[in-house]
């Protein structure tokens, strides 16, 4: 791996974790904690993306240990983002937001069994409350758990895809051209 791509990984990881300050400022129910993983994949391919996802999970784990099992989700996110990048789905919001919603479904399908079997579906306050709501609506336990993950995930992943699209199009063309995957992800090459 070139030094440039190596240097990208800590930066992308730190972006995922630092964006919470921006989210807090506008008080929206978003995490954006896969931004770095998706961005790194869209710029530099699946290897860099997966590495970013793993490092993100590792650093998150030190803040809250219950994040560690969800490293699987970060890896799935990187792989999905790679497919989306290959298909040029970051070319506009019209293609990126549906792709983000799709990732929301896949991410919740991945996190549901982890959340259910490992934590009894109580990983974070928001998810747990949504799960309780699902349970109140009469869903079976696993279904309520999926409902909880989905409610908290799909909007977040759509917003993340939209943000990554904004970033790719906001990069100066010369900078974008120097990352191996960027132009392809934007549907420009």
């Amino acid at each position: 791996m070139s030094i440039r791509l190596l240097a990208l990984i800590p930066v992308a990881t730190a972006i995922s974790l630092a964006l919470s300050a921006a989210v807090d400022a506008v008080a929206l129910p978003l995490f954006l904690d896969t931004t770095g993983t998706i961005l790194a994949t869209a710029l530099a391919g699946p290897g860099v993306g997966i590495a970013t996802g793993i490092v993100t999970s590792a650093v998150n784990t030190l803040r809250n240990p219950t994040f560690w099992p969800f490293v699987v989700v970060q890896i799935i996110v990187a792989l999905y983002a790679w497919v989306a990048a290959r298909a040029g789905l970051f070319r506009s919001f019209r293609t990126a937001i549906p792709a983000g919603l799709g990732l929301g479904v896949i991410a919740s399908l991945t996190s549901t069994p982890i959340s259910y079997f490992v934590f009894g579906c109580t990983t974070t306050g928001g998810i747990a409350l949504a799960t309780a709501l699902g349970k109140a609506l009469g869903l079976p336990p696993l279904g309520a758990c999926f409902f909880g993950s989905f409610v908290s995930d799909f909007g977040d992943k759509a917003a993340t895809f939209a943000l990554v699209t904004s970033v790719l199009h906001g990069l100066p063309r010369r900078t974008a051209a120097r990352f191996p995957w960027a132009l392809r992800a934007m549907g420009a090459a």
Partner: protein
Amino acid sequence: MTGVRLHPFTLLTIAAVLPALAWILPAPDGAAATLVVALVLTLTPGAKLTPGASPGNASLWSFPGWRPGLVRLRTAVVTAAPFWLFLLLLHDVPTTIAIGLRVTTMVATFVWLVAALDPARLVEAMVAAGWSASVAYLLAATFSAVPVLKARAQRIVEAQRCRGLSPRGGIPARLRALRALALPLVLSALHEVDERALALETRGLVPGIRRTPLAPPPDPAAERAARWALLLVCLVALVRRFIVQPFS
């Protein structure tokens, strides 16, 4: 008073094995046992030396080394408490106790790990163990980049508000505001990747180097053996639980 300073790999092994056992051993007794171990670890005074603890004070709370232990214990309890609440909300009492004990073991172990693990020593240990300098770089550079970008994100929020950006309003307005707060952070950070790479290159972090470990932490044979033993215990427990006596 300082306790034994364990090798970083030993710390990591304990932090991996203890929560794993909490899930593998039959509930609730197994998880209760691991939780006891984890809580004792959390209280270990030697987890990290605290400069400025005053030995002159006689109260237990300020007894050097104990206060940080109690602070860690409180952190673990505060982090784990919401889980118990939600578990009760979603499950019956036996399930709540089973999962609650496991999650609390995990939380307490990691609270202890974060206090006991010195990132600098971990990097040194990785280099000394022959890991590629790149892997050590990824871990360490991320640790140091996160607070830097967090501070920058905060500065950007302030600067944009001082340019008249209001972070309030309807959802569309907030999403637009989020864009004006998130994009500067991401663009400026990506823009710096090049200079970071140039700086690493000029300072000799290139693929295939044989880096000199600066202060490799001592790794006695007994500790190495203990690490393997812990992993073995974990494996035996796994086999017992799922093959010899499944679903007991």
